[in-house]
């Protein structure tokens, strides 16, 4: 028996560094600075004269199916986003300094004019730009890129939705492109200029799903693709023929480490110059001023910044329980926000009520979140006709029991913690919630086909603006992203009007009204905004976090001798 226990311990031990957490943390140890705790880069992180050279190793938490930024199956991976700018370039880019406002700075286009009726856009292209394969960049490549997106045979639906109203695209000469729209759209210019990575016409020929550029991208940016070891890393090197200011780094290495625990261990061993997506528990654990945390406190700058994302729980409005907005309001009042903030989010995520960027003007500050109030929720449920039945204590209405299934994605750490809390809260007022876990791919397809009762997801974008038409307009129930089946004529009209409003200030007013209505209807149980939690070695300079992520073109490495730490 004793031998068996030892055996059991041996089986378990190799997997863990079983150092017990110190009971009384000795106060002596490196003290993190205020900026470090907040995740702000100290001023010295961006001082000094940039020098060329060196390799930047970045942790990427997911591996894309491919690197073709146009392809539906390859666009949502984080890495592809990192490569917009360094590898692929757009006609113009979102002004990183001015986010969340919607300005554009020229990149592959030098200038553009829009007609007074907002229906014609003339773009003048930069001359002397070459692709990484040596070919010149001309209007033919713009046309090929747009055509690849517009081709219904290609899997480009998510970008294509932005170009359905494009009536024609003409190329009067090699360096001019004229786009004509069949109807005005407030974000048409912005989308055309900033969302399409320019790919060479030659590289887009062939079967779109198996293009060589899906594995080895050819762009015009300051970094050129070198190699991709599947499951391991991607390497990019400085492109010699780049038209603009060359990048400082010799080499960019994107290390693919999906497992967060493994990534944390590699990070602790110093494998990453830029660590991304630090888990909240780790973020908090390394704050203790103890010797065991010295590597993080002294060796890295922590970076936390607000991304444009929000998480939500959606109630499928086709289900009898969730039709009534009163029920959805009651569910919001059963959400133990304070407990979740303290124990699940560890005080890192920010509760929200709004489908727009937190720091933008589009969120109405007068919207106050519904309070956690189980008694009030029970009264609302009674009022909506869901009465507690004698016996088992489960609510029912017209013979329908209030019992539903929460569809959960097993990879979400946050849901794994949140769901049990929710089950308990709902049970107390007589609602039975079962949980079903399915893998990510099935999860999304079931949401698209409205084959769920309740589910949770987060919307995120790297821009400051967001056209919520696709998410909340009743026409977007089939084929769009209105998974919960929300249909409100008022909100429909507002969303349509936003698309035709070219004055940003007027648009903000409409967006605030949509915010108020959506929250009153509890279209979602709005949860939180999740800030990015990253860390960079102190010698990494020129990092500036923005919605469009770090600008790797401007990053440089301080020479080891001049590295004073912080």
């Amino acid at each position: 028996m004793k031998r068996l226990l030892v055996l059991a311990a041996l089986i378990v031990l190799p997997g863990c560094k079983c150092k017990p957490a110190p009971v009384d943390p000795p106060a002596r140890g490196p003290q993190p600075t205020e900026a470090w705790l907040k995740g702000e880069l100290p001023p010295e992180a961006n001082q000094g004269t940039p020098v060329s050279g060196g390799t930047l190793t970045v942790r990427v938490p997911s591996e894309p199916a491919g690197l073709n930024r146009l392809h539906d199956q390859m666009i949502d991976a984080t890495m592809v986003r990192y490569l917009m700018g360094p590898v692929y370039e757009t006609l113009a880019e979102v002004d990183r300094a001015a986010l969340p406002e919607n300005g554009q700075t020229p990149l592959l286009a030098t200038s553009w004019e829009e007609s007074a009726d907002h229906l014609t856009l003339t773009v003048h292209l930069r001359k002397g730009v070459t692709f990484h394969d040596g070919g010149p960049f001309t209007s033919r490549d713009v046309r090929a890129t747009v055509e690849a997106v517009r081709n219904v045979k290609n899997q480009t639906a998510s970008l294509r939705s932005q170009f359905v109203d494009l009536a024609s695209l003409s190329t009067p000469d090699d360096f001019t492109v004229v786009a004509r729209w069949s109807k005005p759209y407030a974000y048409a210019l912005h989308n055309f200029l900033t969302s399409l990575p320019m790919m060479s016409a030659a590289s887009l020929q062939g079967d779109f799903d198996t293009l060589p550029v899906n594995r080895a991208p050819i762009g015009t940016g300051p970094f050129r693709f070198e190699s991709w070891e599947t499951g391991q890393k991607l390497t990019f090197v400085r492109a010699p023929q780049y038209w603009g200011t060359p990048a400082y780094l010799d080499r960019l290495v994107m290390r693919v480490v999906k497992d967060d625990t493994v990534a944390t261990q590699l990070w602790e061993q110093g494998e990453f110059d830029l660590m991304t997506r630090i888990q909240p528990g780790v973020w908090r654990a390394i704050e203790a001023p103890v010797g065991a945390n010295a590597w993080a406190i002294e060796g890295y700058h922590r970076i936390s910044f607000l991304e444009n994302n929000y998480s939500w729980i959606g109630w499928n409005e086709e289900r009898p329980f969730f039709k009534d907005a009163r029920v959805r309001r009651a569910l919001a009042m059963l959400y133990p926000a304070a407990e979740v903030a303290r124990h699940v989010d560890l005080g890192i995520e920010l509760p929200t009520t709004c489908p727009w960027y937190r720091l933008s003007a589009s969120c109405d500050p007068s919207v106050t979140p519904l309070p956690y109030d189980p008694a009030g929720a029970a009264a609302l449920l009674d009022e909506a006709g869901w009465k507690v039945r004698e016996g088992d204590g489960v609510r029912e209405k017209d013979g329908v029991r209030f019992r539903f299934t929460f569809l959960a994605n097993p990879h979400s750490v946050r849901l794994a913690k949140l769901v049990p809390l929710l089950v308990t809260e709902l049970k107390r007022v007589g609602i039975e919630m079962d949980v079903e876990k399915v893998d990510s791919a099935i999860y999304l397809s079931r949401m698209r086909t409205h084959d769920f009762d309740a589910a949770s997801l987060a919307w995120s974008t790297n821009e400051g603006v967001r056209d919520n038409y696709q998410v909340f307009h009743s026409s977007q129930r089939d084929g769009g992203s209105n998974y919960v089946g929300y249909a409100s004529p008022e909100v429909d009209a507002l969303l349509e009007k936003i698309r035709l409003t070219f004055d940003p200030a007027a648009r903000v007013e409409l967006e605030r009204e949509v915010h108020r209505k959506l929250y009153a209807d509890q279209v979602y149980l709005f949860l939180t905004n999740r800030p990015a939690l990253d860390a960079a070695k102190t010698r990494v300079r020129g990092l500036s976090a923005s919605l469009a992520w770090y600008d790797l073109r401007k990053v440089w490495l301080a020479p080891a001798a001049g590295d004073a730490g912080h």
Partner: protein
Amino acid sequence: MSPWRRFRADRRARVGLRVLVGLLAAAVLADVLASELPLFCRVGGVTYVLPCLTEPAALRGLSRQALKASAELYVPTPIPFGPDETFAGTKARFTPAPWSPDDEHLLGTDELGRDVAARLVHGARVSLWVGLSSVALNLVLGLWLGLLAAWRGGVVDAVVSRLIEVLTTVPTLFLLLTLIGLWRVQGLWALTLVLGLTRWGELARLARAQGLQLVRQDFVAASRALGAGTGRIIARHLVPNVLGPVLVSAAFAVAAAILVESALSFLGLGVAPPTATWGELLTQAHRTLTHPGAWWLALFPGACIALTVGSLHLVGEGLRRSLDPAA
């Protein structure tokens, strides 16, 4: 010496069996061992016996503190927490959960402040249920099909043998992941059924091999001459004679099924939350192992799995030795 006496004389097998019986008892008595409701209590002159089992409506909705305060008599369960009770302790704690073992939570808590000991005891139910009942189904199918093949031979034998080959080449974990994706196979029953219906190949192969030796023996021929049918011959003559070796294999199969369930829960696709399982605790351990270093989330469920699997192996080994006619 009879096999049973040989088994009892085997010290290691005895230890394995005791551990197993202990675990089984813990699983059966989980509600009495760990519950938010007490073993006995008297509230307002009314005495409740084992409210942790009966969950009387009068006590529903009362918090533990309120109940404790108003009760004249209060005898808590040995582990005074239910498996799904979150942040149930009364001690003031300043770091976020998971909390390390202390005098309130003897084996610590998980990330939601749930008592690890309570979750282990209730998790034993899932593990043992899946292991034992799926293998019971394996045994029924494996014995019958294996012996039928041995007895009938010819086409029946060929069909069963091919079926066994196909089944034993499909990796169970991937089969389960596929079924979860396609047909929403989830939950305790579905899991048990799938394991029960797909993992009988090895047992059937063994039963068939043993059966082939038996069918040529005189007592089988005699019984056939007396007019006994296939069912009777298999049930009365073949099953008792192959049961021994097949049971040895079944003991190992239980261990393997428990590991499959744990692996599936570890991947987040096992029995749906908030049901406590050992594998689910290990998932949390995986997340929290380095920061904040929650070793107790790995050690205790890991030890439970190792203990169960280890003792099943001891029992299996003991069975093999005691049934071995050469011994």
